[in-house]
């Protein structure tokens, strides 16, 4: 009947609106005060269509009235139940033993009055609490993955309210420049501005966004269009998965609808250093955060010798950065590691050797195959005793020996930790449990193509953070877009890589036979790299170079790895690719890995990269 249908159509949006309002009110009243005005919707529904007189409206009114009453009863029941549960929880919390740490009188990092755990039932608080007691989206950790997720959530869920909780004092920032670009800046105030020049010449800050992008945690609840709030200087210490809430180190509780754990990790240290005592620890830097960068920058200007322990990405990059600085100052830069060459665990041996030579040219004293036996402090100098008997004296140590993923919340949350790779174990969609996702360095996830892994690179943090944000807003997509990583070690070595790049895998490297055109200018001034042997363009090559070429180095294979592509194979399938001094070809590399095909002739695959072009 038409009347019914019209009435129903009119009713539906009204019912929806009223139930939403009802829900919101219930939540608010349930949490702010114990008293619950029953039948809250009454006030709001009075703004509904107050129909005029007339017979046909009687049916309409009856329907409206019925819905009204039903909603009211539902509201009353829910609110009553909430109140009861709330009271139980308060009792439970207050019965818990108080923490040993003096969390009450401790001055908060952020100049705000002490946040209330859950507003007391004494009186309705007139203003919003400093920390929202509930947030729809809670992101634990304020790094790259967290920021990527926040952005993803905001893009997909209109007016989303996102709360980031981080124990660092800083807003979300990117890490790669801390060991690269920031060290090459000409600006003396770079440690304050934290700005660097990108590959395209444009300058930017390491912070993803300036402070004006974010809203303050107090405003989050009431923000009409939502926003991203960052709560700095607060650590999440306990997670109650059943109750969908977390507890901070100051006893504040925050409940959530969806939660992301992006806690990253903590730099590992050598046991011998940890056992060596305070004097040694004082002179040791574990490098990860902005404060570490500032401290190392300051220290490096005041000492004569610094030693970097570790031959991976971070160690090599810092060694090159400090090595370059040593050109201006008298700083001695030493780098030591157990492998045979820099990036020994990543690059095949011939390339690792080549890279080590380049690192040395940056002014670094490289000590390979070095295992540290003990470290002592004597007369204000550190003495590093190696297992093979060598003794290295230095003023300061930078330990870059890996990252320990932060899984502190695993116990209280009941989350699985992976025993092979470390980190929280999550599925292909980055989900640990209902409503809980993990992204970034701390996530041990299932990669459909490459198998279970944990990746500690910047782009992975971006990709996984984005994906987690998408899945938190209902996307249900697995990890599919393969992340990449890159490294720059001086003017000659720049590479981008994707997939599993482990030197223990068999590799096939396809390199361009170098001609005069390919060689970077810097290398032509220095001999020893054996480029340009019998190329036909030798006549046009710069003559000083020809004369400085050492005689025996004509053999093409030696030290000739100017540009190329290296494939890493597992069971004949390409699982990793390095683009060596070849840029803007990452999409092709990504495609090859995604296909996961067995290719009989990898030289044919290499053709796709067009390595001879720029």
């Amino acid at each position: 009947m038409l009347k019914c249908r019209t009435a129903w159509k009119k009713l539906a949006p009204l019912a929806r609106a009223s139930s939403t309002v009802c829900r919101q009110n219930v939540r608010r009243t349930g949490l702010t005060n114990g008293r619950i005005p029953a039948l809250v919707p009454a006030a709001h529904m009075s703004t509904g269509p107050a129909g005029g007189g007339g017979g046909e409206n009687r049916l309409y009114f009856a329907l409206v009235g019925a819905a009204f009453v039903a909603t009211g009863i539902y509201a009353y029941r829910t609110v009553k139940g909430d109140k009861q549960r709330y009271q139980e929880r308060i009792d439970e919390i207050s019965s818990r033993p108080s923490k040993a740490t003096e969390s009450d009188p401790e001055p908060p990092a952020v100049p705000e009055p002490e946040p209330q755990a859950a507003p007391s039932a004494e009186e309705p608080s007139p203003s919003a609490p400093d920390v929202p007691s509930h947030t729809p989206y809670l992101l634990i950790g304020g790094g790259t993955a967290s920021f990527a997720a926040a952005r993803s959530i905001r893009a997909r869920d209109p007016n989303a309210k996102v709360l980031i909780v981080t124990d660092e004092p800083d807003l979300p920032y990117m890490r790669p420049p801390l060991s690269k670009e920031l060290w090459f800046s000409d600006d003396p105030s770079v440690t304050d501005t934290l700005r660097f020049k990108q590959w395209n010449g444009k300058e930017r800050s390491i912070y993803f966004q300036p402070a004006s992008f974010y809203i303050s945690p107090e405003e989050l609840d009431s923000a009409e269009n939502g926003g991203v709030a960052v709560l700095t200087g607060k650590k999440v210490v306990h997670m109650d998965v059943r109750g969908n809430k977390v507890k901070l180190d100051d006893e504040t509780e925050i409940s959530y609808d969806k939660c992301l754990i992006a806690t990253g990790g903590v730099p590992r240290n050598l046991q011998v250093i940890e056992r060596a005592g305070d004097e040694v620890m004082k002179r040791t830097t574990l490098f990860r955060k902005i404060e570490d960068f500032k401290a190392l920058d300051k220290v490096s200007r005041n000492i004569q010798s610094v030693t970097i322990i570790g031959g991976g990405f971070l160690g090599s990059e810092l060694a090159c950065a400090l090595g370059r600085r040593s050109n201006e100052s008298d700083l001695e830069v030493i780098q030591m590691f157990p492998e045979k060459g820099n990036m020994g665990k990543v690059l095949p041996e011939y390339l690792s050797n080549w890279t080590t030579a380049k690192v040395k040219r940056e002014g670094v004293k490289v000590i390979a195959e070095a295992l540290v036996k003990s470290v002592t402090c004597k007369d204000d100098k550190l003495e590093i005793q190696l297992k093979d008997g060598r003794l290295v004296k230095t003023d300061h140590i930078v330990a870059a020996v890996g990252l320990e993923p932060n899984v502190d919340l695993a116990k209280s949350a009941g989350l699985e930790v992976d025993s092979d790779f470390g980190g929280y174990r999550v599925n292909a969609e980055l989900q640990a449990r209902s409503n809980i996702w993990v992204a970034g360095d701390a996530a041990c996830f299932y990669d459909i193509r490459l198998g279970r892994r944990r990746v500690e690179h910047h782009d992975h943090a971006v990709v996984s953070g984005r994906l987690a944000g998408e899945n938190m807003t209902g996307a249900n997509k697995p990890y599919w877009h393969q992340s990449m990583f890159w490294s720059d070690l001086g003017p000659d070595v720049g590479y981008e890589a994707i997939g599993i790049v482990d030197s223990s895998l068999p590799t096939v490297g396809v390199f361009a036979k170098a001609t005069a055109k390919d060689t970077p200018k810097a290398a032509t001034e220095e001999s020893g790299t054996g480029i340009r042997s019998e190329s036909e363009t030798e006549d046009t090559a710069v003559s000083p170079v020809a004369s400085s070429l050492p005689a025996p180095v004509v053999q093409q294979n030696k030290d000739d790895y100017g540009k190329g592509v290296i494939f890493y194979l597992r069971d004949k399938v390409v699982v990793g690719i390095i683009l060596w001094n070849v840029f803007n070809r990452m999409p092709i590399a990504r495609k090859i890995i995604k296909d996961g095909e067995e290719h009989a002739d990898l030289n044919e695959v290499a053709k796709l990269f067009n390595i001879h072009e720029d």
Partner: protein
Amino acid sequence: MSPSESPCKDRIIFVTREDHETPSNAELIAEDPDDPYEEQGLILPNGDINWNCPCLGGMASGPCGSQFKEAFSCFHYSKEEVKGSECIDNFRNMQECMQRYPELYPQEEDKAESNSGSASDPPTEGSALPSETDSAPASSEPESAVPSDSMSPTDDQTAS
């Protein structure tokens, strides 16, 4: 192509330009443009706007995100002869919002110019929307319309 002697584990091949002149016979699997797993561009297969496109930077997620979304949606779905001509209010709202955050949305004329791409700008009739439409990516392959708001230092380089 000169194969070199090296340990079996790591093969090294040197190739000249001529070696690589012949087209590759390596077979790649055909792409499915509607693959839901893949990263989507600005416009989704069903015609909707992908607000999470990296190409938008932080435009849809920042403080002026909702205004931006309204304005751009209006423009995208506009069927007017002069596309987006009915969206003037939306764009004005967006511009007003952006003016409140000069740090995030720098009001640079030349940046706005370079970001217009192949935009079929509606304001042929008025000067009401000079810079706003320019700062909104109007083509399906926009450059980063955002004031230096990329996540990674090599974002543009590796956009795929």
